[in-house]
């Protein structure tokens, strides 16, 4: 018998190193027990030739179980060949693989080092905050023939890519999720101080908080919310009844429920809204987010969402569609899935592009590409906006406002 495991069919960033390592271990194990041999093919697939009396079903069942979340349809995951009946077809498949371009040396996921994170922390102290932050606007898509994008809020966050560029450490910040959460908590203090000063000086970063433009959203860690810089920021917000929402990751909330409850109380007391961030559809099935009493929940879009079945749709309905923002909405498929499930709130690159298209419509064609316009709109510092002839439009967020500004 031959079994080909089609790791090449996994959706990037899979196959990740652990997929290859464990699949290889499972197939090596089968090879050892059943007088076989495993071959790694040029396209990342693994081929096992083995003696088999059971039709290969136990091994096939194990592989199907292992990859059930990555490849729900096991027919796409592996192919079983009988050497007697399918020998010629297997040979053709193997010959085709020989013609494949040999793979790059196995890509090792960058291992986040504590030293690199330490350097990233110091970068934050040495740079102007607006050069390190980015922003993204979320919209409400009003239904109807004249579908309009109505800005809901604008999230300000540190640009991890920019931070990494400063110390030439691409991939380090996200390489280790635990170190990344630590880095995020250290960035919070700097961000909170900067925003408080901006708020008190009527600066452009916090225009939304003062009611000029969409509401300001800020992603913070629990330790950031329970820190002194937050107390000072919250006092500044309370003083002007600022329009601010704080986003907390679902994982952090579940990791320390006591600290989460304290943080939520602090937000309520300061008059700030609570948004639950980082909710994947898998995590939605394993938790009860409504218990955390958020004002909004940001559900991460994934191309696997449409295959997730009725359970996700039921969970969204139970939360209330008006409380759900479809986050990381990068494609039109995301929008279509969201609308089909009653979701009207969206944030992501698809929204950025739509807003850019409308700004270009107001600004006049031929000057910039949509990508340039979207990138400049996400920048908070002058360097990122260089080249824009109409920076007021970048801040306008609302295409309608943009249009009227252009006409004025």
């Amino acid at each position, binding site marked *: 018998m031959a079994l080909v495991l089609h790791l090449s069919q996994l959706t990037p960033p899979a196959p990740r190193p652990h997929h290859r390592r464990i699949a290889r271990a499972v197939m090596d194990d089968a090879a050892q027990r059943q007088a076989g041999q495993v071959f790694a093919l040029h396209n990342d697939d693994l081929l096992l030739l083995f003696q088999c009396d059971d039709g290969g079903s136990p091994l096939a069942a*194990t592989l199907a179980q292992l990859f059930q979340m990555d490849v729900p349809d096991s027919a796409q995951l592996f192919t079983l060949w009988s050497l007697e009946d399918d020998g010629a077809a297997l040979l053709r498949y193997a010959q085709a693989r020989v013609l494949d371009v040999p793979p790059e040396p196995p890509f090792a996921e960058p291992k986040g080092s*504590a030293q690199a994170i330490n350097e990233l922390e110091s970068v934050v102290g040495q740079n102007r905050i607006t050069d390190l932050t980015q922003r993204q606007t979320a919209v409400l898509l009003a239904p109807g023939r004249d579908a309009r994008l109505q800005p809901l809020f604008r999230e300000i966050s540190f640009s991890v890519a920019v931070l990494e560029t400063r110390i030439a450490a691409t991939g380090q910040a996200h390489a280790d999720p635990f170190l990344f959460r630590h880095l995020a908590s250290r960035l919070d203090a700097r961000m909170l101080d900067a925003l408080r000063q901006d708020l008190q000086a009527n600066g452009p970063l916090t225009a939304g908080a003062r009611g000029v433009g969409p509401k300001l959203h800020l992603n913070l860690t629990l330790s950031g919310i329970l820190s002194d810089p937050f107390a000072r920021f919250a006092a500044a917000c309370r003083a002007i009844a600022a329009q601010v929402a704080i986003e907390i990751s679902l994982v952090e909330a579940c990791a320390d429920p006591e600290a989460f409850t304290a943080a939520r109380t602090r937000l309520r007391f300061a008059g700030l809204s609570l948004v639950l961030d980082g909710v994947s559809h898998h995590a939605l099935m394993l938790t009860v987010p409504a218990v955390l009493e958020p004002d909004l929940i940001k559900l991460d879009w994934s191309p696997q969402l449409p295959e997730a079945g009725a359970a996700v749709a039921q969970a969204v309905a139970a939360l209330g569609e008006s409380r759900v923002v479809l986050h990381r909405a990068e494609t039109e498929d995301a929008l279509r899935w969201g609308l089909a499930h009653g979701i009207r709130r969206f944030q992501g690159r698809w929204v950025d592009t739509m807003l850019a298209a409308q700004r270009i419509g107001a600004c006049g064609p031929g000057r910039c590409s949509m990508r340039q316009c979207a990138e400049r709109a996400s920048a908070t510092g002058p360097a990122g906006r260089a080249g824009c002839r109409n920076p007021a439009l970048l801040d306008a967020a609302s295409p309608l406002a943009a249009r009227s500004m252009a006409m004025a």
Partner: protein
Amino acid sequence: MSGNEPDHPEAPMAAPAGSPGLAALQGLVRDCATAGVERRVLLLRADLLPPRLTRPHHLGLIRDALDPLLSAERARLHDLPKGRLAVSWRGLAPALLQQSLEALEHLLGTSLRIGPATARSLVRLFDLPRDGTELLAAAGLESDDAAPPWRRAIPVAPPLMPLDAAALAMMERQLRRADMTRFARRKPVHRLDSGQVRLAWERRCLSISELADTLAPGRDIRADAWLFRRLTRVLDSRMLALLSAPFELHRAGPFSLDLNVGSILGPEFLRFDSALPSRLRGRVVLELQPADVLADPATFAFAREFAHARGYRLLLRGVTAASLPMLCLPPMELDYVQLRWSPELMRVAPAALQAGTAEWVLSRADEDNALQWGRDQGFSLFRGRALAVTA
């Protein structure tokens, strides 16, 4: 080692001697007495709260409650020793005072589950210059005899520096060379069945506190939860290497290991798996944390299926009365769910104890009431001193 349950209860906060807040308050008392100026002072005795409620975020909440009062004329906040706080202001400001007291009741009530009467008992009002001596005595100059009994009983540890990323990098380098054998510990998990107590398995772990004392003296390695979690990944690989050594598991009985999800899929685990004696296959339990499961559910599912295929059993640890309502346990397809005992569990409805086909384990069952509660719920697996004494 993904565990974050401390080996010991949290030490109470250290009392900085000669704090600037106390000096300023002394100056104010002196000035009021000399010049006959009137001031009102609210003293908040956060030090009267139990240690578990005096973590920095609790103190932050208490400070928030005082915010309204800081709008009063000439208001000033004084940080005092032992976590005490004082606000001084000119005039009576009854509305602002009332607002702060109500906020304090609300914050303490919702977050710390402290009743209004206790909340108010933390607060005293003083009028200067009349009550100056009494205020200073209450603010920080009292002898320890006046402190509540639980505080006198626990020695105050010297302050530790929090572990930062640079110190972690150094500790990781040291860990690669350190001999782990001396830090290895075993803790029993008991099964109580028809009145009979027997050892279900041993929990194999490393003593975090001894490791910290040896490799990072003067550092609080749990001060940053995420750096600590990162550290546990390094400890996982060292623990797995230790157990993979020849003869290490020669006579071992069933045991459990506290691991990160990523560690189950690492090369060290594969080496451990190869070294595992066949008589232990199916008798090893892998313990995981909820945050680790939720951080990447797809990788968790992959690791679970791999572990099950190799005969390991999976346990979700660190579930508490507070986190229980947040989690939907049946779809996690676990073998065991370990619930940490606290009196708050007695208020949890039995219907909330839904774990699918998983069996419950009650940890920190140190006293009879914990054991009784667990038995009432039909639990038969326990960790803690209550059964260890009987066994």
